[in-house]
């Protein structure tokens, strides 16, 4: 839009001298741009920036929904820092991310490579693997709860076939988080599978074939041809998965309600409980800001780090 011939300086004009023809055009462009951007920026300011700033303000207060509000300064943040439950909640969230993200990427990439262009009927598999992504999370979780609970399908099956009890997956502190991760991977890998699958389809067959003729094995072909070409997709998938996994809520909320104890409570659940259940908005806002800072920090690190491994030249 801004490529305009009037922006070229007249011959012989001294460097840095005012360019008489440029300013009105720029101003005009700026005006149009402002008009087009206004609805979007207005929405951003009203529904995102203002509430974000407001939440920062609220986080500095003891802000019960009922009763008197009082200024605490960084009191809510200090409370979070010293609260063993919140520390455990942060740890749980990190544990979920550390387990979920690599496993999700490995499963989805593995299946995408396995169901390569040479496989017949791969479209059917693509649809099948994507179904859990499209199904409402609540429905998915309800089914998994019937699998996991005492007397459920797993427990019942083990008892009738082998006469042994299954672990109490959702009631045991050791098993609850792995159970949530397993359910989440089943539910979520289909999305990354599609992303990787589309990226792999773009790798030129001619290059793979010539590498094969030159004696490269399947692992070498993947390592030196496929992998560099899919790194932008890999970057996209890992960034997205990381961000969404830090925000995990529905799975533990419905499957275990954060229990037993606080073994599966995550930061967003903590925010929800403090804000909507216990009506302490100040603490909820402070916890929300802690999550926001963590996500922004990690996303920034990923963006800076991508230069080292993401290949945009192919």
């Amino acid at each position: 839009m801004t490529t305009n011939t009037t922006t070229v300086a007249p011959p012989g004009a001294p460097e840095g001298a005012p360019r008489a023809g440029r300013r009105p055009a720029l101003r005009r462009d700026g005006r149009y741009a402002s008009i087009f951007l206004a609805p979007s920026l207005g929405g951003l300011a009203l529904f995102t920036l203002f509430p974000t700033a407001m939440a920062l303000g609220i986080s500095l207060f003891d802000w019960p929904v009922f009763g008197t509000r009082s200024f605490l300064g960084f009191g809510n943040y200090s409370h979070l820092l010293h609260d063993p439950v919140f520390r455990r909640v942060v740890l749980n969230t990190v544990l979920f991310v550390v387990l979920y993200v690599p496993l999700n990427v490995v499963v989805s990439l593995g299946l995408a490579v396995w169901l390569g262009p040479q496989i017949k009927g791969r479209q059917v598999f693509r649809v099948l693997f994507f179904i859990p992504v499209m199904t409402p999370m609540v429905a998915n979780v309800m089914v998994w709860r019937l699998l996991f609970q005492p007397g459920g399908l797993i427990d019942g099956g083990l008892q009738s076939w082998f006469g042994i009890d299954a672990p109490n997956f959702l009631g045991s502190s050791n098993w609850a988080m792995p159970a949530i991760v397993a359910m989440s991977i089943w539910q979520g890998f289909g999305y990354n599978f599609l992303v990787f699958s589309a990226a792999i389809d773009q790798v030129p067959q001619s290059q793979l074939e010539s590498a094969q003729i030159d004696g490269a094995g399947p692992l070498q072909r993947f390592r030196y041809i496929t992998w560099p070409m899919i790194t932008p997709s890999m970057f996209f998938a890992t960034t997205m998965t990381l961000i969404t996994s830090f925000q995990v809520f529905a799975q533990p909320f419905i499957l275990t309600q954060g229990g037993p104890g606080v073994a599966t409570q995550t930061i967003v659940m903590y925010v929800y409980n403090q804000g909507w259940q216990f009506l302490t908005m100040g603490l909820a806002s402070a916890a929300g800001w802690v999550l926001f800072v963590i996500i922004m920090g990690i996303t920034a690190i990923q963006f800076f780090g991508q230069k080292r491994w993401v290949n945009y030249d192919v």
Partner: protein
Amino acid sequence: MKATPVRAHRWALKTGMAALSVLALTTVAACGGSNDGSSGSSGAADKADLTWSFWVAGAEDQAAWQKVADQAHTDHAGITVKLQGAPWDSYWSKIGTTLASGKAPCIIGMQSLRMASYANAMVPLDDLMKKYGMKAEDFDKPIMDGLKADGKQIAIPYDSGPMVIFYNKDMFKAAGVPDPKPGWTMDEFKAAAKKLTAAGKTGLVTTPGDLGTMSWVRTMTGAEPLADGKLNLTDSKFEQGFSQYADFVKTDKIAPQVPGGNPDFETQQFTGGKAAMQLNGPWSLIDTKGKVKFNLGIAPIPAGPDGSKTYTAGSGFGIARSCKTPDAAFQAIMSMTTEKPLTTLAEAGRAYPSRTAAHPAWFTAAKIDGAKETIDYASEHSVPLVTSKNWVQVADLLNRFGTQALNGEIPPDQALKTIQDQAGAGS
């Protein structure tokens, strides 16, 4: 391929915004925190269009409750009540902020266990009761008391009920265990439960819900969760009672291990015929009877050293402080809790009515032998469960750490200490 990184940027931006929206939601709620504002109603004492916020389970439920609301219009031609229904969970998510914003509907549904949190935002009804001649003695006393805060009546109940044992008569018969009678003891209960625990089935099913847990503790040692309005879970009598309750799962193994986060587990196990007994309220009795394929019986909670002791809970209707026509709203509530609508609800098997005059209709609908004898006995031996202002948090913590205590992951007294530490300050 080239487009992917750009998409990644966009998606990252979008998701960053999603992170912000967590904060945004919090803030939008808090923005409504001013105390001025107006109600959605208008009119005088005998003329008003009122809105009633209440929990409903679906379209059929909504229609049944709208009929209750219509009673107000039948009794007072100038008053109309429009039901604004929401599912149980979202009702409680919204009602706090709506009340605090001063824009709540005039008539509010209120549950006795949660009332302490919201009482400040509601109108005390004692003067209105006097003014319009509503008699407290026409209602079950425990639930009238349960809907009081600091001695003031905050809501008028429509249902009530003491916690009682639901049992599977067929399983009792097959195991050769006699049907329990009012006055049965804890030893008799345990002996029956042990005999019924066999072949993958258990004598009891329990989860650490607030009402159930507190009832078990009360019958075992008489301990109550609050002392002088403050949470008192680390009291030695409460610890002792809770420990004995946890033993049902942990050491006696008369109940299955508790899964985390499934509030329906008890009902699923009981109605599925996998457990012979559960502790439940009369409000669930007729619904449970419709679901099960066995003969259903009820009995009072077993007697501990000082006899059978249980808790009563129930729900009712109150008036938001922001309501500009409290007189009209009160007259509407009076109509909605008269014998006629409560009898209609009872005949439909919905709730055990709070008004004693409507009880016979409910027992007729229930068609369960000994139901009247049991519920009358349990009512006499019950008190309302008085809760703290942060009871929702207490119940949440009890559910989390109680599960660990019952499953034997942590000692019961440690669970109680954690709950007390986390919630004690806010009680």
